[in-house]
C-alpha cells in the first residue's frame, strides 16, 4: 500500500586489510571507473586488430562503406535507446519501419501508382510512424499493458498492414531525390544518408543531455515510483519516448527505401535483433536508467566494423554467426553490474 522506496543495501564495513589487499582494491576501483568506456576501447581494439590483418580496412573508401552500413542501424538504435533507458522495450521496429518504407514508396514517384508527393510524402510517412509509436505509448500507459506485449502486437500489425497494402509485392522507388539520399555523396564524402543519421544522433544527444524530458527518461528508468513522487509526468514522458522511437523508425524506413530503391513489407526483417544488440553492446543496460545515445553510436559502430571486418578477413560464414553470439554475451557480461544484481533471471 505504501510506496516502497528503494532498499538500503547492507553496509557491512571493512575490517582491517593488508596493504596488498589495499592495492588490489585501488586497482579494482580504477578498473570500475574505466568500465563505462569499455565499449569504446573494444571498438578501438577491434578496429586495430582488423586493420593489422588487412590494412585496407583503413582505406578512406572502406570507412565510408562502414559508415554507410551503420546509418540505418544507428537511426533505429537511437529510437530504441530512449525506450530501453526508460526501462521498457520496443519490439515494433520491423513493423513500423515497414510501414514507413511502404508509405514512402507509395507516396513518392514509383512504379505502382501515379502519386508523386516527393518530400511531402516522406514527411507524411514519418509522421505516420511517429503516430504509431505514440499509439504504442498510449496503449502501454493507458491500458497498463507491458511494453513487450504492446510492441510485439504492433510489430505484427505493422508488417500485416504493409502486406495488405501492397498485396505482398514490392514497389520500386523512382523519385531521384529520395534515391539521392543513398547515392549522392556531397563533397565526395559520406552519402547523405550518413549525414541524416548523424543529424539524428545530434538531435537525440541534445534531447538526452540538455532537455528536461531527457532527464526524466533517466529518472523513470532509475526508479519510476520515485520519479512519480517527484512530480515527473511519467505517463506523458513514456508516450513521448515511444513517439520519438516511432519517428526514428520511420526515418529508418526512409533510408532503407532509399538504399534499396524499393519498399515492401519485409524490408525490416531481422532488424529488431541487430538494433537491440547494438544498444546493449554499446553499454546501455536493459534494466534502464543507464547508458545513452553515445553508447549506442559505439555499439552500432562495433557491429558495423565487425561485419565489415569479418568479410575483409575472409572469415567463414559458419563462424560468423557464432562470433556475433559471443559478442552479445561478452558485451552484456561486461556491462551488467553483477554485484548489484542478487537475483539473475
Amino acid at each position, binding site marked *: *500500500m*505504501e*510506496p*516502497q*522506496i*528503494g*532498499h*538500503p543495501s*547492507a*553496509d*557491512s*564495513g*571493512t*575490517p*582491517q*586489510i593488508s596493504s596488498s*589487499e589495499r592495492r588490489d582494491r585501488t586497482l579494482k576501483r580504477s578498473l570500475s571507473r574505466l568500465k563505462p568506456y569499455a565499449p569504446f576501447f573494444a571498438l578501438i581494439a577491434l578496429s586495430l586488430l582488423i586493420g593489422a590483418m588487412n590494412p585496407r580496412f583503413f582505406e578512406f573508401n572502406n570507412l565510408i562503406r562502414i559508415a554507410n552500413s551503420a546509418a540505418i542501424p544507428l537511426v533505429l538504435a537511437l529510437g530504441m535507446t530512449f525506450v530501453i533507458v526508460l526501462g521498457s522495450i520496443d519490439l515494433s521496429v520491423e513493423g513500423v519501419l515497414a510501414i514507413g518504407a511502404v508509405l514512402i514508396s507509395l507516396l513518392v514517384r514509383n512504379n505502382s501508382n501515379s502519386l508523386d508527393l516527393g518530400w511531402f510524402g516522406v514527411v507524411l510517412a514519418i509522421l505516420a510512424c511517429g503516430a504509431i509509436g505514440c499509439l504504442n505509448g498510449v496503449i502501454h500507459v493507458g491500458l497498463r499493458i507491458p511494453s513487450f506485449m504492446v510492441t510485439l502486437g504492433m510489430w505484427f500489425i505493422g508488417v500485416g498492414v504493409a502486406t495488405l497494402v501492397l498485396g505482398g509485392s514490392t514497389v520500386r522507388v523512382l523519385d531521384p531525390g529520395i534515391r539521392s539520399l543513398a547515392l549522392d555523396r556531397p563533397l565526395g564524402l559520406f552519402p547523405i544518408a550518413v549525414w541524416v543519421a548523424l543529424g539524428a544522433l545530434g538531435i537525440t544527444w*541534445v534531447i538526452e543531455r*540538455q*532537455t*528536461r524530458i531527457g*532527464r526524466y527518461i*533517466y*529518472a523513470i*528508468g*532509475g*526508479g519510476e515510483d*520515485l*520519479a512519480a*513522487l*517527484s*512530480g*515527473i509526468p511519467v505517463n506523458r514522458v513514456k508516450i513521448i519516448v515511444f513517439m520519438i522511437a516511432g519517428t526514428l523508425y520511420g526515418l529508418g524506413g526512409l533510408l532503407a527505401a532509399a538504399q534499396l530503391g524499393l519498399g515492401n513489407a519485409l524490408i525490416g526483417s531481422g532488424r529488431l535483433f541487430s538494433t537491440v544488440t547494438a544498444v546493449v553492446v554499446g553499454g546501455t543496460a536493459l534494466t534502464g*536508467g*543507464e547508458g545513452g545515445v553515445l553508447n549506442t553510436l559505439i555499439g552500432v559502430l562495433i557491429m558495423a566494423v565487425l561485419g565489415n571486418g569479418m568479410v575483409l578477413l575472409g572469415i567463414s560464414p559458419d563462424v560468423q554467426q557464432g562470433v556475433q553470439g559471443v559478442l552479445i554475451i561478452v558485451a552484456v557480461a561486461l556491462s551488467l553490474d553483477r554485484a548489484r544484481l542478487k537475483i539473475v533471471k
Partner: protein
Amino acid sequence: MLSVEHVSKAFAGVQALDDVNVEIGVNEVVGLVGENGAGKSTLMRILAGVYSPDRGSLKLDGAPVFLRSPRDANLNGIGIVFQEQSLLVNLTVGENIYLGQEAEFTRLGLVDRRRLNAAARRQLDKVEVDIDPRTRTSDLSFAARQMVELAKALALEERTERHLVILLDEPTSVLEQRDIDILFARVRALKRRASFVFVSHRLDEILELSDRIYVMKDGRVVGHMETGSTSVPQLHQMMVGRDRHAEYYRESKQQSPKEEIVMEARGLTVKGAYQAVDFTLHKGEVLGIAGVVGSGREELTRTLFGFVPQTGGTLKIDGHAVRLTAPSQAADQGVGYIPRERRTEGLVLSLPIAVNMTLSSLPVGRIMGAISLNRERQLAKRWVDKLRIRTPTVEALCLNLSGGNQQKVVLAKWMNARAHILIFDHPTRGLDVGAKEEVYELIRDLSAEGVAIVLTADTLEETIGLCHSILVMRDGQVTARFDASPGRKPSQVDLIRHMV
C-alpha cells in the same frame, strides 16, 4: 503554523488515523512516536501530500490547504525525507535535488546545467556538506545521501513563501552513530529556517532532538507534552500501556541450557571477514554475538547459515563436521535463519501466509507427493494462533501484514521445518515495542523447548537481556566471552570495552 485538524484515514477497512489533531509551530522540532501501526507513517504521508485524508483538514496559518500530490505539498513548503533512500542512484546529486523542478533552469526546452549545479551547491551549503553536485549519487555513502536528501528538502525554501516544514521519517535507522550526531547537529542548526517533524523508534533520540512530542497509539493521539517533562518509561507506557522493566526480556524465564552440544566451531575463518572463532552452542542455549559494524559478526552469522562458507577451521553440527555452501544445506541440517531483511530474504511477500509457512517444509502437509492444501491451511491456523499473528485469514498475503507479524510468519516457517538451531539476525529491527516483546517471549519459549539460538541483536540491552552467553567480536576476532545467566549479567560497559 501547520495544523492537522480532526484528520481520519482508513485503508481497506483498517482505520489508520482516527480524529488526529497535531500542531507544528515555527522553528521547532516535533517528535512523533508510536508503535508500528499507530499511524505515524500515514500521518507523515498525509502531510507530504502522498495521501489525502478521508475526513478532517490541514491548515496553514489558519487557512485550509488541499494537498493532492507531493508537488502540492512542496509548493506549500512541506518536504519529506523518507526512511528508505529516495534518491535516484543513476542521477547526479544536483539532478536529484532538483528532480521535477528543472523548469526554473530551462530555457527554450534546454536545461542550463551550470545554473542548476550552482543552485544545488547553495542547497548543499545549507547543510554544511561538501559534495560536488556533479557527483553520481551511487558513489555516495548512505550518510552523505541523507544529507543530500536534507538539502533537497531545504531547496523548497526558494520555491515558496511559506515556512518550511521538513518531515524526517526514521532517518536514523540506516546511519551509524557518528552520522546520526552530525544529522542532529544539522537539524538543530537548521531550526531557524525550518520546522521539523521527527519520527523515530528510538525513544532516546526523540527525547534528544525534539522540542515537543506527540504519542500515537492505534491511530489516535494519546499523549502530547514538552520533551523536558517526560521520560522513556513514560513514553513507553503511553505507547503500549505498560511499563518496561526487567521482565521486558523475560529474564525470570531464562532457564539453563542443556548439556548436549548442537553446534561447535573451532578456528572458524572466512578470509577478509573474521578468523579463528571458537564457540560451543548447547541445546536450549541463546548465544549472543556482539560487535560493531565491521567486527565480523554479520559474516559469522551468514556462515552459520551457508551464505558464505568458511575458508578455514571446522564447523560441527550435531557432532559431524560440515561445510555449508548453500542455505539449503543448512536447512537440511536443521538450521533456520530469521533474516534482517525479512521483506526480501524471509518471506515471499506476494504469497499468502499459509504458503510461506510451509515453504521450507513442504513434505509436511503432503499426501502422496501432492501438497495437501487443507493440511497446509490447518497448520497455518495453528501457528497463527500459537504465535498470535494478527491477520484476518491465513490466505492473506504477507505483504499486507505489519512488520512484527511478518517476522512471526518467518519464525513459523522454520518451526514448521523443525529446525533445532535458529539464527536470529536483528530480529526486532523495525518492530514496535509490543511486537518486540512478543519476539522476546517466543525466544524464551523456543529456548525452553530445547531450540538453540544464535542471536545478533540490535542493541546491547537486548543481547544482555536475552542471552545465556555472549561472544564479543572486534575486527574479525573474538575479544571476550561472557556468561550472561540471570543474576550474573554483564553490563553494557563491560561489552563495549571489548567492542571498540
